[in-house]
């Protein structure tokens, strides 16, 4: 089926690369989640973390990471599509009846859940990185003064972003779909890489479900906590104080999207 006869083009090597890139993305997802969970700490924690990401290696690290992730993502998807195309061709006539015995919904729908995750990643980047889908990114204003240009109010951006129940629900649904993808993928990659044997087989069989549950619970806790008002926007609170102050005839103290940054020099921080 493959036109390339070199062993490195074989189905097994391509599956191995899909597994390896999947493993790297799982490492990224877990790291990303751990960083995001800093939202449960005071705002300075996640804001300083975001500043660190932007400043590490004089700003080179974040771009190298983005380029690396994009490459990993593209290789993972590209090879999966090539394998899926061959799989479709391998059974041109479907069975009239087919009883699955060992597989589950998650393992049979990896392409579907993977496509949903891909679309989610595009939306997520437009939402919080590019900041074009709603006004939540407007809250990501500089708060560090002239000496710290990369210290942004990421905390307020995230909280405002997830205060919309539709956006919060969408993120939760997408995380569950990601969890389904990881449920199978997190274990399957060890088989593809040939690590499934004896003691390791028992460990790897649980790896996917454990990673899936950790990622879903960890990532969903953020929109849920924000919807439950467990995490609140500190800038929003400050703004409300400023409104009360202005009603009382005092000058506004805080920048906000509403006043267009006219009071940025008089931030509460």
């Amino acid at each position, binding site marked *: *089926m*493959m036109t390339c*006869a070199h*062993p*490195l083009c*074989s*189905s*097994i*090597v*391509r*599956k*191995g690369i899909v597994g390896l890139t999947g493993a790297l993305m799982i490492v990224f997802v877990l790291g990303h989640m751990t960083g995001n969970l800093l939202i449960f700490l005071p705002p300075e924690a996640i804001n300083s973390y975001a500043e660190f990401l932007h400043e590490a290696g004089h700003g080179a690290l974040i771009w190298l990471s983005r380029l690396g992730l994009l490459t990993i993502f593209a290789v993972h998807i590209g090879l999966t599509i090539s*394998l899926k195309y*061959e*799989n479709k*061709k*391998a*059974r*041109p*006539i*479907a*069975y*009239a*009846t*087919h*009883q*699955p*015995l*060992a*597989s589950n919904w998650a*393992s*049979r729908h*990896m392409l579907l859940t993977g496509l949903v995750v891909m679309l989610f990643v595009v939306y997520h980047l437009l939402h919080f990185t590019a900041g074009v889908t709603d006004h939540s990114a407007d809250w990501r204003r500089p708060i560090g003064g002239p000496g710290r240009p990369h210290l942004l109010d990421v905390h307020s951006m995230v909280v405002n972003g997830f205060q919309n129940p539709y956006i919060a629900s969408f993120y939760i649904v997408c995380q569950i779909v990601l969890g389904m993808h990881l449920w*199978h993928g997190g*274990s*399957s990659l*060890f*088989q*593809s*890489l*040939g*690590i*499934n*044997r004896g003691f390791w*087989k028992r460990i790897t069989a649980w790896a996917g479900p454990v990673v899936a549950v950790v990622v879903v619970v960890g990532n969903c806790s953020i929109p849920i906590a924000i919807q439950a008002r467990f995490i609140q926007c500190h800038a929003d609170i400050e703004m409300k104080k400023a409104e009360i102050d202005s009603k009382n005839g005092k000058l506004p103290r805080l920048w906000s999207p509403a006043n267009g940054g006219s009071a940025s020099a008089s931030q509460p921080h």
Partner: protein
Amino acid sequence: MKLHLKVWRQSGPQDKGRFELHTIDGVSSDMSFLEMLDVLNDRLLAQGKSPIAFDHDCREGICGSCSMMINGRAHGPTRGTTCQTYMRNFHDGQTVVIEPWRARAFPVMCDLVVDRSAFDRIQQAGGYVSVNTGGAQDGNCLPVPKDDAERAMDAAQCIGCGACVAACKNASAMLFVAAKVSHLGLLPQGQPERAGRVLAMVAKMDEEGFGNCTNQYECEAVCPKSIPADFIARMNRDHLGSSLIPSE
């Protein structure tokens, strides 16, 4: 008991094929599935109709000839070959759907008979040992660790029936090839050709048009010889190592 059979009929490789309905009564629960088809064929012949073609040989579960999908399960409702499937596993009045293995690499020749020579070609690509191992006494002089001998024998149980391909969502032959690669690769006699064997057999498997493994282990669940999917991981390991580190 009385059964309603929905059987795939196809006059030749070029025919489109269709399902044909047959009702058969007087089926004894002691009959094997193939004996039930024999009875049906006798009745079809008596009526001047063409009998249903199906593969069979030893009828003892060891030759791997019989091959059919019964109600969506390779070889039928119990683990084992079709010839070892007994009518006691069906109930009176049940509708039984019988289809041939479905895979591009296994073209249907007639009714339930498929051409499984793709397996032979994979075997010919590297499933052998060229080393002269001498007579039985010479073979016994080669020490083989007990665990390796056991695992090699587990893999060597493969009868090449094709149920793994039939049950796999992607019509992948990974379990068959893994068993053939491993049963030689685990023994000292198989070591000189180990890297070349796995590369050649996997290349042939890809060339024959089988699908790719997505690690759902349907193959393992239907294998009449209970060959575990661990051998697939072993073959992956062997192949990745042999392709990334070429032998001298």
